[in-house]
């Protein structure tokens, strides 16, 4: 019901949801039901790759929510993604049980290796799936809430905010590289066996994880869409365009920013949690500041402030990355990525979808209401 209400005015959204949910059904089918000999068969590797793209799409969506609609350029969203991933990884580590190399009933291998005698307190509870899944959302959410509360209350904005978010993920990276943090040091968490009792490597499990990623992306889209379509969403755009004006209208900007930042971090955390079982590892390199900046370019390529565009950008850029980082073009990938950053910001500031919207709007001005047909410096939707 609400979905229908949300989408009445959102043609892109309808297409987006149709495609994503279609993928959720079709891709697992092509993987499981179609024999490997068939040209339509989707291999395990491709399935994992596509699943990875969907997780990145959700991450990009979460960033678009804060950057595209509220003007908060977070250069640390990779940190929330990684934290969600670590929460999931901890659950998966506990599921290994005695099947580890050292066959310790409680401690993961790396702890045995480090001569630890008991589980650190912050690993308690992660053997329960529900607890771990709660933490997937709670840890990034809480960090974003606390960080955002302080930063937004002190009115740290613009590039200053970007720089401190970057410092945040950098600090976390250094911390997670340390062995005595209890997260496996630079090797991270890996060698997973089961998720919810199903073997992680099994085809059916992989197919289910893919479907789950697609559903998560669709739900993420709906949540983001619900937020931006609400009056709160309008306030967010107002903050983006004229922060102090919004304050003088009586809106507590810091509350709004903290809210949307936290929601976005939770979405990023979920994306990370779905990513980890599909790639089979989580390590501190996910916290690298460069990773977080790359997410920004996905959003910029697809079109900031378009939600669906962000997801599209994530898939396109990552598809290009997989294509070009293998084979003879590999040494040139960073040139291409770098050029993409430069060209998109100068020539395609609205990204693919934003530019398309403008183009359609100019083609069919009569069809649409006046408001939709005109272009403004920054697209609201």
């Amino acid at each position, binding site marked *: 019901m609400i979905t229908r209400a949300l989408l009445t005015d959102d043609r892109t959204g309808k297409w987006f949801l149709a495609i994503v949910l279609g993928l959720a059904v079709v891709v697992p089918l092509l993987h499981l039901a179609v024999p490997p000999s068939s040209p339509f068969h989707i291999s395990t590797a491709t399935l994992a790759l596509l699943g990875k793209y969907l997780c990145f799409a959700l991450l990009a969506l979460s960033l678009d929510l804060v950057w595209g609609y509220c003007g908060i350029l977070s250069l640390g969203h990779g940190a929330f993604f990684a934290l969600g991933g670590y929460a999931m990884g901890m659950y998966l580590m506990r599921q290994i049980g005695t099947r580890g190399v050292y066959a310790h009933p409680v401690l993961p291998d790396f702890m045995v290796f480090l001569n630890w005698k008991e589980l650190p307190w912050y690993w308690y509870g992660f053997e329960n799936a529900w607890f771990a899944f709660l933490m997937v959302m709670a840890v990034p959410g809480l960090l974003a809430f606390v960080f955002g509360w302080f930063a937004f209350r002190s009115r740290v904005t613009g590039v200053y905010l970007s720089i401190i978010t970057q410092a945040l993920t950098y600090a976390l990276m250094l911390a997670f590289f340390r062995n005595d943090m209890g997260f496996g040091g630079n090797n991270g968490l890996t060698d997973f066996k089961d998720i919810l009792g199903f073997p992680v490597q099994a085809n059916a499990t992989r197919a289910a994880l893919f479907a789950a990623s697609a559903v998560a992306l669709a739900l993420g889209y709906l949540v983001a869409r619900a937020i931006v379509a609400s009056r709160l969403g309008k306030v967010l755009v*107002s903050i983006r365009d004229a922060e102090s004006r919004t304050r003088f209208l009586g809106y507590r*900007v810091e509350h709004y920013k903290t809210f949307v930042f936290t929601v976005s971090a939770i979405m990023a955390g979920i994306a990370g949690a779905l990513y980890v079982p599909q790639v089979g590892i989580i390590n501190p390199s996910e916290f690298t500041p460069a990773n977080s900046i790359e997410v920004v370019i996905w959003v910029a390529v697809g079109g900031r402030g378009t939600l669906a565009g962000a997801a599209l950008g994530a898939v396109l850029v990552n598809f290009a990355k997989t294509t070009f980082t293998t084979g003879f073009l590999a040494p040139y990938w960073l040139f291409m990525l770098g050029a993409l950053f430069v060209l998109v910001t100068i020539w395609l500031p609205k990204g693919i979808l934003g530019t398309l919207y403008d183009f359609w709007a100019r083609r069919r001005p009569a069809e649409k209401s006046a*408001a939709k047909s005109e272009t403004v410096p920054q697209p609201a939707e």
Partner: protein
Amino acid sequence: MTTLVPTDAPAPLTPSLLYLDGVTVSFDGFRALNELSLQIAPGEMRAIIGPNGAGKTTMMDVITGKTRPDTGEVLFDRGVDLTRLDEAAIANLGIGRKFQKPTVFESHTVEDNILLALKGDRRARHVLMARTSAEEARRLEEILEIAGLSAQRERLAGLLSHGQKQWLEIGMLLAQDPKLLLVDEPVAGMTDAETEATAALLKRISAADHSVVVVEHDMAFVRALGVKVTCLHEGSVLAEGAIDTVSENPRVIEVYLGR
């Protein structure tokens, strides 16, 4: 509206809606406001004039919570101390502000601009679920009518002309239904006809029991308002009174109007 019967408020009892006393603000040694004192009565309209750097905008910043004064009292509506509140809290008390440069939400429609400004619960959790009520719809129509923007309601505010943006911003102020309106140079860049219409609009607002403080350079406009005038100079009040008295004050002529 406010009844200004003295109450048991701890602050000095005053019949004023806005009460500034001995307000000083300095930026790196430069005194933008220097022992400024000013009172605005409920329902009063006041014009503030003064040369550049006289402290007009800083005064507004102090009243709306953007700038904290170094010393001095700023009281509003039966003794609420504005120096302890932030912009949002002050706005919710009933002080609206229009900026010198028209500031509207350019990527929202005219309608949405007014809707966001309408008086109401500003808490995020309420705003998230808010639906436009019948009362809000009625107010919206009314304000669009007053601001003369009914025909433009679906347009994006960024596409309005300069004058329309000024009016939209005044409309947003009305939507806030504040007790006190601070209006910074509302007719800058307007045609004569628009200027007259704006003067009429402001008078109408004031007549509806809103206090209005207008900062303006345009003496013809100030004259058209026909209200008490305060001339600021170097952060304090130089002269105060009817427009004719003030404009004949030799000091005012010297520092501001010119000979």
